[in-house]
């Protein structure tokens, strides 16, 4: 029996750590494990993925998991993000564990053949850890659903978080957080089946086109990346207090602020990453922050 788990998160949320905690936990239970992250171009806040396979026999797979039995989605904004596409390839009879406050029925309406489990990990993390750190929480949810034993799992949480350098106090809090998540859910018996797909290989002659040079001639085209999705908090300008001093504009590393014809600063929420330099630097405190995705 082999279980394939794909974690989807945003850079900095701990998808890699989650994949390692789950891998450790399964290993502690006596399974063979294989876990690994993929790194893209993007940084904190950008979509990332990590993978865990575990099996009571040899693992004869490697690399990207195209057909997961379970997906762990750490951030519900990823569902709409074509770069993440977290449910892609989820097997028939598979399970998606989603960190969200939304009702489960709205998340995957066209996949009646898969099970959706929703849990408000962010809310729990803020309450128990004081920060939206999700690695131990999502690992706990997936480990529980996958039937990993509690002892093996909690040892894995502590081991992995010590490994990444967390203080003993934070390790303890994370173990408590993980136990709470683990206790909320029940194991599932998954009988999964790969979705049908048809391979079509293209010959070289079809791949080749024109000069085939790697030139970006539409320079300045990065706005379509929509790095606004990376944001945890959004800056909000109180225009009654703003005196148009332009300090926030000057120090925005993203060019996500522009000056309108009325001389007032506008924030491009499509791409503002929410670094909050503007909030810190505003001499009149005319910028406040508002939480994204249910954060206060």
């Amino acid at each position, binding site marked *: 029996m082999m279980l394939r788990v794909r974690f989807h998160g945003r850079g900095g949320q701990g998808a890699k750590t989650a994949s390692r905690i789950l891998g450790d936990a399964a290993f502690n239970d006596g399974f063979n494990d294989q876990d690994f992250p993929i790194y893209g*171009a*993007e*940084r*904190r*806040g*950008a979509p990332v993925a990590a993978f865990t396979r575990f099996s009571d026999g040899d693992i004869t797979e490697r690399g990207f998991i195209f057909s997961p039995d379970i997906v762990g989605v750490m951030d519900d904004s990823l569902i709409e993000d074509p770069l993440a596409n977290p449910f892609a390839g989820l097997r028939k009879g598979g399970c998606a564990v989603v960190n969200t406050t939304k009702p489960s029925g709205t998340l995957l309406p066209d996949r009646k053949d898969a099970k959706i489990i929703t849990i408000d990990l962010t809310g729990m993390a803020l309450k128990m850890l004081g920060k939206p750190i999700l690695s131990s929480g999502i690992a706990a949810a997936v480990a529980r659903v996958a039937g990993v034993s509690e002892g093996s799992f909690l040892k894995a949480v502590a081991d992995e978080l010590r490994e990444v350098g967390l203080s003993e106090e934070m390790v303890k809090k994370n173990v408590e957080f993980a136990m709470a998540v683990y206790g909320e859910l029940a194991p599932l018996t998954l009988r999964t089946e790969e979705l049908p797909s048809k391979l079509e290989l293209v010959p070289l002659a079809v791949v080749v086109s024109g000069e085939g040079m*790697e030139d*970006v001639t*539409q*320079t*300045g*085209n*990065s*706005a*379509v*990346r*929509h*790095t606004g999705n*990376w*944001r945890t908090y959004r800056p909000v300008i109180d225009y009654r207090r703003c005196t148009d*001093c*332009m*300090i926030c*504009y*000057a*120090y*925005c*590393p*993203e*060019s*996500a602020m*522009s*000056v309108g014809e009325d001389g007032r600063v506008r924030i*491009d929420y*499509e*791409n*503002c*990453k*929410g*670094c*909050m*330099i503007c*909030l*810190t*630097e505003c001499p009149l405190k005319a910028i406040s922050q508002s939480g994204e995705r249910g954060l206060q």
Partner: protein
Amino acid sequence: MATATRFRTLKDMPSDEYLTPGNTMCAGCGGILAVRIFHKVLGPNVTWVNAAGCMTIAVSYPLSPLKSNWIYTAFASAPAGAQGVRDALDVLMAKGKLPASEDMKVVVVTGDGAAYDIGFQSAAGAIDRRLDFYYLCYDNEAYGNTGFQMSSSTPFGSASKTTPPTAANPIGNTHRKMDLFEVWRAQNAPYVATLSNSHGVDFLKKVEKGGTIRGPKMYIDFAACPTGWGFDPKDSIELEKLAVQTGIWPLKESVDGVVRHTVVPRSLLPVKEYLTKQERFAHLFEPTERTEAIRTIQESVNSYWAVAGAKEGFAVKAAEVT
């Protein structure tokens, strides 16, 4: 040397944007902010020549956040890449194959790994050849793109992935930061300047001044790195400001070898105020305070300003050494 400037306050920062939103750098990245401000002064006609580093990832096919030209070269040879572009423009214009309207400013942009270490030789060559170009080093004091390993720019006492504080070596990096400003000055670069994003007007004026000088114009920007240094991105500018106010990052320029400090703190804030705000220095304070290491840092800052003040005729009140 007083020259007319169009930059008096931050409000004078040109409103033209050449960096488009949606770049891939970390939130709060000092390096990309430096690129944005630098570009505003240079105007639209620019070719950026890049060496491997964080900024390399900013231009990831098929999206470029820069409206201007971009060439990624290699880790070691971005200044030579600038040489090729500059020479090609010059020769094509001289031969009448290219109109003068196609002339451009050629700017090397690299991190400190390239500037201080692997591309050091290539920069030295370009300076020696008096290449007419700008070099913008966004200095985040380590190899940030590979996860924060020590470079020759890493300061004394900093933790890095290759200088982790351990029981045997509790202070992390034991080398002092290489003085690249002085090295480039000694190589007779006609203009060398340090920048801090936090001191925007000083930054703008220095880039503007570079435009009046023919030859190599070398800039080292103190680029706060939330990910590598370990602080909240919202404090990026604050940390840069503290580096200037504690005297750790002197803002200065060298014109034909003559050094002038452009921002002189009247009295230095204690370095502790800067160090305690970053995880890379956390081991100097927890679990036990490494008094001697902190004293070493404070003394070296104090002595720097005493020497600079004596040379240039200003007095800076040193911070107390504890």
